[in-house]
């Protein structure tokens, strides 16, 4: 079951090689390797505590790592989160990371903080329009304090903020957590649209495997810090036995 459907090393946009990560003495990831092609959506599945969140944190510089993380040829491992962000990686963290006391629009503007140079003002305004286009409800709430938004709206805000970075790589940590099924489906629809329209490469962590496999091209199953299964999304979706033993869900 270790069938590889990933791009070869040469043309991988994101190439993770033998990645180890943890917190202090606690080691969580034990040698994770995976590749994601440009413009692809990659799903990371697995049970609670498997290390999915830690994997995203390792990719965005939020925890100590050993191994290599290459984005379009540039090594990201060991860089600070702000340096990684300035290289085009937008991480929507577990818990959404909303700037609670700030307004919706200020949250979005902060997403574009790293942008500078001539024309930045206009391009930020354009991107605000674009994000409001994806999430019209945010436009109606733009002067409202972000802490007053519902869970679903905060998740939209978090994704909108990430888009303001004009990411080359978008990392999403359990966007469905705590949201009503209808909202979740809408959100995944938008992720798919963003991926299609802007060609943004996405790595999405989900416990709701069904949803994630619906939008992803390929998927990896993580268990206790190791990838135990990789393959195309259809393949993993189709394999009932896999679903039973690794994902423990009802397709």
């Amino acid at each position: 079951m270790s069938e590889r459907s990933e791009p070869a090393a040469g043309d991988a946009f994101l190439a993770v090689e033998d990645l180890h990560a943890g917190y202090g003495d606690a080691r969580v990831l034990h040698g994770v390797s995976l590749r994601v092609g440009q413009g692809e959506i990659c799903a990371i599945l697995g049970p609670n505590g498997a290390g999915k969140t830690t994997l995203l944190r390792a990719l965005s510089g939020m925890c100590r790592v050993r191994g290599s993380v290459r984005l379009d040829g540039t090594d990201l491992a060991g860089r600070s989160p702000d340096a990684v962000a300035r290289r085009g990686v937008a991480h929507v963290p577990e818990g959404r990371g909303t700037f609670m006391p700030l307004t919706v629009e200020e949250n979005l503007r902060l997403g574009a903080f790293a942008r500078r140079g001539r024309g930045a003002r206009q391009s930020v305004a354009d991107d605000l329009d674009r994000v409001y286009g994806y999430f019209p409800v945010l436009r109606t709430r733009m002067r409202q304090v972000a802490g007053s938004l519902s869970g679903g709206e905060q998740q939209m805000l978090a994704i909108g903020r990430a888009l303001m970075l004009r990411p080359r790589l978008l990392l999403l940590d359990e966007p469905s957590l705590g949201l009503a099924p209808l909202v979740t489906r809408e959100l995944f629809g938008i992720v798919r649209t963003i991926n299609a329209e802007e060609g943004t490469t996405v790595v999405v962590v989900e416990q709701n495997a069904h949803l994630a496999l619906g939008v992803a091209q390929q998927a990896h199953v993580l268990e206790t810090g190791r990838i135990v299964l990789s393959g195309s999304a259809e393949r993993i979706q189709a394999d009932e036995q896999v679903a039973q033993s690794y994902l423990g869900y009802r397709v």
Partner: protein
Amino acid sequence: MAEFLQQVVEGLGAGAIYAGLALALVLIYRFTGVVNFAQGELAMFSTYIAWQFMAGGMAFWLALPLTLAVSFVGGMLIERVIIRPVEGAPELTVVIVTVGLFIFVNAAAGWIWSFLIKDFPSPFPAGSAQAGALTVSYSTLGNLAVVAVVMGALYLLFQHTKIGLGMRGVAADPRSARLVGIRVGWMLALGWGLAALVGAVSGVLVAPLLFLEPNMMGGVLLYAFAAATLGGFDSPVGAVVGGLIVGVAETLAGAYVGFIGSDLKVGVPLAIILAALLLRPQGLFGRAAVRQ
């Protein structure tokens, strides 16, 4: 009645000074979560720098911007060199570092400039304006105007500039701030620089009233703590309003409460701190409660 109003006006003048230092305390607390016990001493040191410039023959209005610039850079350096290594350490550690800084700066000023008091010129003309039965000295008006200008400038910085938005982002959620590409360390340093600058303004306002000497800010710091506690330790507006209230309360107590007089006035800020902590720990304008 006229006499009472007169006391209120005097109180506002004193309060403007407490408001200035309280503003500095609140700036650092908001951005870094540190209660900087050395804030008053830094302000005192800045005032000596201004004095030194003027002793060299420089005009006040030239010495002031230079002093503010030096203070700003000095504040940033202190954050980078002294505070950075204990960032994220337990609160007590950080408090002790700022207390150590207090002692060090105080001693350094004494060593450089001696403990003898020095005259410090008032930037405002002597004399006073007359409004009906009220007499308001130009220095009181000047102090209030300066604090209003500082407040306005900070408002513009935080609400209408990108760097200000970044600083508020860091204050709200440092981790998310990193994820959008903000160099959080530099923002914290900027917060210290700004606080040192604002503190320097309050030092320069205090010095003409109290004489310049290394211990001049001790009492003022106490009033500033009362102001910040009352207004809310994370609210710049609260710091200013708190400062004005503390100034008025102190002046009125000194004038009308028989047994207080001018010697026991210092008890007023302590009473205010205590009352605020008991009745409204987050302060009038604050969000987070001061942890006891």
